[in-house]
């Protein structure tokens, strides 16, 4: 083999391409940035008191905004997976990716570019949510190390979910279809979790789902890191295992979809 592969350089080129797209066609990205901010303001300010009263202190004696913020952070990550899934699917319908596939470039670069672009966008989105949460009364009680661990966990989840969403998006022939197939990730997971109310106050069917889906242990871990709430011993590891599993499945599945029908 005389062809040298340039994984870093090619991925950086693809990342530049995607960031340019985000700037040229900001609708999708602005939507992804704005939605979680609206959620934190809506639930933090408008519905917060009602929810809190209904729970009658079941949220562990914390302000509702403290209880809410970790879940909204995950919601930002989840809703942010829509745009890379649609963008990757749209890419496949266009000639430019056919061109990339006939070139000697690092194969995973095209999709990795989408993932990295989305990680950057999601970090901005998370920072905005934390900023607005602080404005309306979020008072975390965390050391620098806790923040670091929390950030690491959030980024790991972003990487994992984005790969998975892209794999789902690539199963669809049209961009519209792609936005539908990722709905379970971007809507179901955040809403059917302990984002808004604790598990104990959920009807049993939904509670069962919420208990065993990945978001709940991750939210518990984040609450523990940021607020010092108690959590099950294994939750941190369960969270990491979920991220790793979702990332691995998402990565290989999306590569498989990307290379479908071509000479590998």
């Amino acid at each position, binding site marked *: 083999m005389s*062809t040298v592969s340039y994984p870093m350089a090619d991925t950086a080129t693809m990342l530049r391409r995607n960031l*340019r797209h985000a700037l040229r066609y900001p609708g999708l990205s602005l939507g992804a940035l704005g939605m979680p901010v609206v959620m934190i303001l809506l639930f933090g300010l408008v519905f917060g008191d009602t929810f809190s009263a209904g729970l009658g202190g079941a949220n562990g004696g914390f302000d509702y905004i403290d209880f809410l913020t970790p879940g909204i952070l995950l919601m930002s990550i989840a809703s942010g997976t829509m745009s890379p899934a649609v963008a990757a699917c749209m890419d496949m319908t*266009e*000639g*430019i990716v*056919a061109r990339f*596939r*006939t070139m000697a470039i690092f194969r995973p670069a095209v999709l990795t570019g989408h993932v990295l672009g989305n990680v950057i966008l999601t970090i901005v989105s998370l920072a905005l949510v934390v900023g607005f949460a602080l404005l309306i009364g979020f008072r975390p009680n965390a050391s620098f190390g806790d923040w670091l661990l929390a950030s690491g966990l959030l980024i790991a989840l972003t990487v994992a979910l984005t790969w998975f969403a892209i794999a789902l998006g690539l199963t669809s022939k049209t961009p519209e279809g792609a936005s539908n197939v990722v709905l379970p990730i971007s809507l179901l997971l955040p809403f059917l979790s302990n984002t808004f109310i604790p598990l104990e106050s959920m009807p049993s069917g939904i509670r069962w789902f919420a208990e065993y889906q990945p978001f709940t242990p991750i939210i518990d871990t984040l609450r523990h890191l940021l607020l010092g709430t108690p959590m099950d011993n294994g939750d941190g590891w369960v969270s990491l295992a979920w991220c790793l599993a979702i990332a691995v499945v998402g990565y290989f599945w999306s590569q498989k979809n990307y290379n479908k*029908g071509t*000479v590998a």
Partner: protein
Amino acid sequence: MSSLAIDVRGLRKSYGDKLVLDGIDLNVAEGTIFSLLGPNGAGKTTAVQILSTLIAADAGEIRVAGHDLHQNPEEVRAAIGVTGQFSAVDGLLTGRENLIMMADLHHVGRQVGRRRADELLEQFDLVEAGQKMAMTYSGGMKRRLDLAMTLVGSPRIIFLDEPTTGLDPRSRHNMWLLIRQLVADGVTVLLTTQYLDEADQLADQIAVLDHGRLVAQGTPEQLKRLVPGGHIRLRFTAPEEFALAAQVLPSAAQNEESLVLQVPSDGSVHTLRSLLARIDDASLEVDELTVHTPDLDDVFFAVTGQPTHDTTDEKVTSK
């Protein structure tokens, strides 16, 4: 004898039940232009997509640039450049950004990449458009940008799928010049086209593809010899004139009912001029003169016994 840039044996591909390529053999010598000629749906694009590693073949031995395509697709990709039938530019990037992106993917370095991009913008008459998003380009501009992007990496083997379809006559002519220039520099070109005249103008070798099978292969001269078609058609109004002309032009095929003579001709100005001279010398009154050059349709008729489509267009040069 130079070595083969593309060597294909027994290439087969089906989509479901539909057999698209039915055991194709192709040999393209280095530094030559090879044209795959065929009507809509013949399998031209499919063949190009397979040879350029975009889709996998069902069967067949394929070597491109000396590398086995199944074993070493990356080596093949490093040697080729592809301009597909459909636009492969990034519409949300400007023309210049598209070219720089290609340069980055060829790892030529920032300075060299920018210089190469600007040279190509100049060469393809896209300097002004270079700062605009490619999705705002006209079809012809996109086509030129597309080809410019293919050339960024200076590939040794270039695949062009219908490179001139949709181009105006001037751009089409420029494209021909450019393809000739590439080959003069030692590049091998495989192009597909629906036009015999284009293949005739450019190609060293032509293969005629029909329903996934190669029905004829050879130099443009060899192919045209398969075609009986080239002739000059003379129509008369008066039967006496027709009879006189038939005497003056004994080689012509006669149709007494319609008062038409068909004089065999290769379509060159020289034979046309000498025919006109003979008409003048005999003071013949010709009502209408048309030149018929063999086209894809004639070649098809000759090699398959079937026309490609049912329109027969004739080139009327004088009346």
